[in-house]
């Protein structure tokens, strides 16, 4: 008797749980679906109310037309260039620094580490104007250098500290005996770092690369701050300009462009989602 009651309440809670999960999944997905639907509307069906949920004759030509309407190919190329180079730079800077923090004793170690972590607390609004002036002084305004080079030095807006923290933890988990053995074999410390430690750290580097890449690809603030010419803009900036400047811009084309900007990152994420979850679980905060 009691057993069936428990079973029933269990089944009920499982059904409720799934019902909630599905409703929430729909809420999360509807904006994406609406983007796809809108991107296939014609200018006439777009403004129809009530809206057409499934375009009767999907206008695939929107996806070619958007290339005529805005230099989306150029935007895309700029995004790829800035994100790839920036990610490489940030990974290099972060892994070098993390190696020093994980494996070396030196004066001021604790203070420097603390200072780097503290930079994460500083809002970008505080450093924004002077960083802009520095870029102007370097002659890097309106050039991709302003968006790429800072990453080789850990990033202009305090994004680098997280990577150093993540990699340091991973490096510390690799047995010290490995380093001792390779040093006895006559390898230099730098050789150990590049030929043994870094290859062993591929999982951590991959997760960091994913986060940094996503951060740069999705960033709007830095491009808006430093760039002004249209053909230098990454996707985020280009789309934002089209949305805000051309108020009557056709939403069908805007959605096609937005979809093009979102798809690469969604694919990346779906491939890597296991690692992402893993990274959250491993760096999980403890009180």
């Amino acid at each position, binding site marked *: 008797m009691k057993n069936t009651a428990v079973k029933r309440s269990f089944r009920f809670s499982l059904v409720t749980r799934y019902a909630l999960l599905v409703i929430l999944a729909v809420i999360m997905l509807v904006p994406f679906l609406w983007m796809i639907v809108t991107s296939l509307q014609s200018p006439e069906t777009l403004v129809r109310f009530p809206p057409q949920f499934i375009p009767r004759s999907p206008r695939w030509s929107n996806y070619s037309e958007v290339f005529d309407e805005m230099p989306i190919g150029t935007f895309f190329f700029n995004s790829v260039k800035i994100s790839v180079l920036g990610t490489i730079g940030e990974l290099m800077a972060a892994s070098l620094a993390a190696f020093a923090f994980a494996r070396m004793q030196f004066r001021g170690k604790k203070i*420097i580490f603390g200072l780097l972590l503290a930079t994460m607390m500083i809002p970008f*609004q505080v450093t924004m104007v002077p960083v802009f002036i520095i870029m102007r002084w370097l002659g890097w305004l309106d050039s991709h250098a302003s968006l790429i080079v800072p990453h080789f030095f850990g990033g202009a807006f305090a994004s680098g500290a997280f990577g150093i923290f993540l990699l340091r933890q991973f490096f510390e988990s690799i047995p010290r005996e490995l380093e001792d053995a390779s040093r006895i074999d006559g390898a230099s410390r730098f050789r150990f770092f590049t030929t043994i430690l870094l290859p062993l750290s591929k999982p951590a580097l991959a997760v960091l690369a994913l986060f940094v890449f996503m951060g740069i690809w999705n960033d709007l603030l830095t491009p808006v701050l430093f760039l002004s010419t249209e053909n230098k803009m990454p996707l985020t900036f280009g789309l934002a300009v089209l949305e805000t400047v051309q108020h009557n811009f056709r939403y069908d084309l805007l959605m096609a462009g937005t979809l093009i900007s979102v798809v690469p990152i969604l694919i990346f994420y779906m491939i890597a989602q296991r690692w992402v979850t893993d990274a959250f*679980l491993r760096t999980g905060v403890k009180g």
Partner: protein
Amino acid sequence: MKSRTAYLYLLPVLIGFVVFTLGPVLASFYLSFTHYEIGAKPVFIGLGNYRELLQSHLFWQVTGQTFYYALLYVPASVAASLGLALLLEKKIRGLVFFRTVYFLPVVTSMVAAAIIWGWLYNGDIGLLNYLLSIIGISGPKWLQDPKWALPAIAIMSVWKNAGYNMMIFLAGLANIPNDYHEAARLDGASAWERFRKITLPLLSPVMFFVLVITTIGAFQVFEQTYVMTNGGPGTSTLTLSYYIWQTAFEFFNLGSSSALSYLFFLIVLLFTALQFRARKRWVYQA
């Protein structure tokens, strides 16, 4: 000798720290006491910028709106994330699918999200108002309505960011030993009691962390307003972060913008400090 090698490895990051963080933090502090326009020399005016700001009606309005936004966004966002995490806590079929779906908005750029939601929020032909009209509600004009624009941005941001804190909560939940729940269950505790007496206290350190970073994030809201409203209609969605931007790069008043950014920094620090002080009251320490 050994120190020198270590510093060699740290060199890039240290240069970056000095050039892009420490230097700018100090420079911006100095600039906040000057009248400064790009190209001209900064002129020292003491506390002039601060005095002007604290006496301006707009500054207080914008500060109020920033708090209002945080008040709308933070509780809703934390509750949504916790809810998602609790639903996904048990090992159930389709877990990976749901987790992936809930995280999708997080990996999407804020620009894309803001453009999509701007379209959903369209007052005349938007999907949202159509759906509301089905259940007999005539929706507001959302982003064009000074009363609804800021809540609309908050709703969109909850959708965009809930998955991030969900992951942090999931990690926290995974750290709670299952034995506690088992023992309580054997003692006849209901699901609600177990949630109140076990899950919540043991999760409170994670909750604290989430609350702190979410509040800081809420104060910094920028890209949403940049894409969706430009601070409008009127000044109804102008928050401190966007106001600092506007003062610097639309009105070209870099001195005043620096002063604003320091006032902003002070507010953020003050709030974080307050949260740390209140910590002992509700965060469980093992």
